[in-house]
């Protein structure tokens, strides 16, 4: 079928040859070139001062930044143990913080005014005061409550705990960081939950699912897509916030680095050592976050984005025929 050629529109007319591919002179971008050159000079200067410039202190050789000192301490047992404790603090506080956050978020969305009010109050207190203050608070709480007794409220007690022996610096810091994180996580989780379409809950209910199951099986898995990126952000932030635990002498990375430099006065070098460890750990966490996000993207995107490894493989596959083309026949 063909429509007569009216108004310049033709259908099914015999296909003419495909017109020539456009070859045009591209627009020039002189600004980019200037900016590029300026940046290159700045980078060269930075590398020069970091690596090649010599120490200005009389009687002392070596590079200005003392890289040999950095190398010496980078894998020293004290530092490595400090990094491990930082990681422990982060993992413990994040796990507790996420669980607490889900609980507080669900309470916040409760229809009971009392329950949602308590949740609101919790977030108000723990988001509204500095983490540093909270760390001190939980460290010194044992002075207020040397013993804690578990039992019936206002009635007899069964177990008595000596807080001074249980709540050491590490656990006081973990408690403070967890409670603080719980408050922030509750807002993140709440945002994720309310982003899920109401029809999802209705569909779950009409299948006969009860509220808890609908939350666990239908709402939370979908909320995860929104919850994961800020949670990754929180984890990376927590890794660094945990350095505040140094004020109550938890032997985490920053505290250890400070202790060492207090003895040998190599302050900058040890700060660099600590920073390298922090950077390494945040890098590993970001990779983990990427894969977690990909996992929860199932069903949300038509095709999952490729992992870097898959992308590499595809690029190689693409390259190969081109390489062969380049070779003389």
């Amino acid at each position, binding site marked *: 079928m063909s429509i007569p050629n009216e108004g310049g529109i033709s259908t099914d007319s015999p296909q003419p040859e495909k017109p020539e591919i456009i070859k045009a002179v591209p627009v020039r971008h002189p600004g980019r070139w200037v900016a590029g050159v300026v940046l290159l000079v700045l980078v060269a200067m930075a590398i020069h001062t970091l690596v090649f410039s010599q120490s200005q202190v009389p009687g002392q050789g070596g590079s200005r930044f003392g890289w040999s000192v950095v190398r010496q301490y980078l894998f020293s047992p004290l530092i490595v143990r400090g990094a491990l404790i930082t990681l422990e603090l982060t993992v413990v506080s994040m796990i507790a913080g996420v669980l607490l956050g889900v609980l507080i978020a669900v309470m916040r969305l409760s229809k009971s005014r009392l329950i949602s009010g308590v949740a609101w109050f919790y977030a108000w207190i723990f988001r509204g005061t500095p983490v540093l203050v909270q760390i001190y608070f939980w460290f010194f709480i044992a002075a207020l409550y040397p013993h804690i007794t578990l039992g019936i409220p206002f009635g007899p007690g069964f177990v008595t705990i000596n807080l001074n022996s249980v709540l050491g610096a590490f656990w006081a810091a973990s408690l403070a960081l967890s409670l603080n994180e719980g408050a922030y996580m509750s807002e993140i989780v709440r945002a994720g939950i309310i982003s899920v*379409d109401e*029809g999802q809950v*209705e*569909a779950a209910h009409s299948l*006969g699912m009860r509220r808890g199951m609908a939350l666990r*099986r*239908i709402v939370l898995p979908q909320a995860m897509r929104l919850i994961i990126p800020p949670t990754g952000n929180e984890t990376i932030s927590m890794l660094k916030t945990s350095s505040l635990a140094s004020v109550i002498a938890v032997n985490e990375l920053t505290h250890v680095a400070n202790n060492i430099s207090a003895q040998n006065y190599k302050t900058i070098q040890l700060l660099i050592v600590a920073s390298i460890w922090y950077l390494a750990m945040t890098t590993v966490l970001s990779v983990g976050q990427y894969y977690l996000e990909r996992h929860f993207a199932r*069903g*949300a995107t*038509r095709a999952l984005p490729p992992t870097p490894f898959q992308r590499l493989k595809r690029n190689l596959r693409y390259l190969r025929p081109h390489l062969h083309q380049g070779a003389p026949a």
Partner: protein
Amino acid sequence: MTTPMVKAEEVYKSFGALDVLQGINLEVAPGEVMCMIGPSGSGKSTFLRLINHLEKLDAGRLWVDGELVGYREKNNRLYELKDREVCAKRAEIAMVFQRFNLFPHLSVLENVTIGPTKVKHQPASEAKERAADLLARVGLGDKVKAYPNQLSGGQQQRVAIARALAMDPKLMLFDEPTSALDPELVGEVLDVMRNLAESGMTMVVVTHEMGFAREVGDTVVFMDGGRIVEAGNPREVLVNPQNERLRNFLSKVL
């Protein structure tokens, strides 16, 4: 006389100052297909949602299969049912939504099996087998592993029907099942529904598909302003409407 599958007596419902339903009386017999038509805002969807207690009714009584919806009556007093009891009743009534409401994070197969396995505690292998059968029955046997948003609207709605059927419902509610579909995809969903009706399923269908109502419906109910204006055999009601408002409505829809 058999117990009606749905019975409504003077059902009222309002949202704030908005009176959505103002005295609905009707009966749906087992195996009957009732189509509800009417302008938007006339209360059709709200009535459907009252039947499986997604909304609470304000006044009147509503029974499904002889049992009161949402309440238990004892010594002339009404007691609200517990969440668990409401859910147990909902599990016997399936609902198909205008916007499908498939679970996007689950595969097509998992969408169909999640109800039977998690709510009715069927063994996974049995539920899977049944789901595969149902998906084949709605013509989607090859889409088992796909995710909902890889499917067209018509395919998604057919998955939603399979998901509903997997619960072995005694009553199916359809809330404008074809209104969100491209015109060319409406037919495939209506075909599945027609087969269901022929198999003897009791169905309450809110729809704007007059052809479907006329061919498949045993009764048609025309609602306007929260009231039933005209009801009866669709071949009579739709062909020879008595009420001025229905005549007006049909002239715009057909």
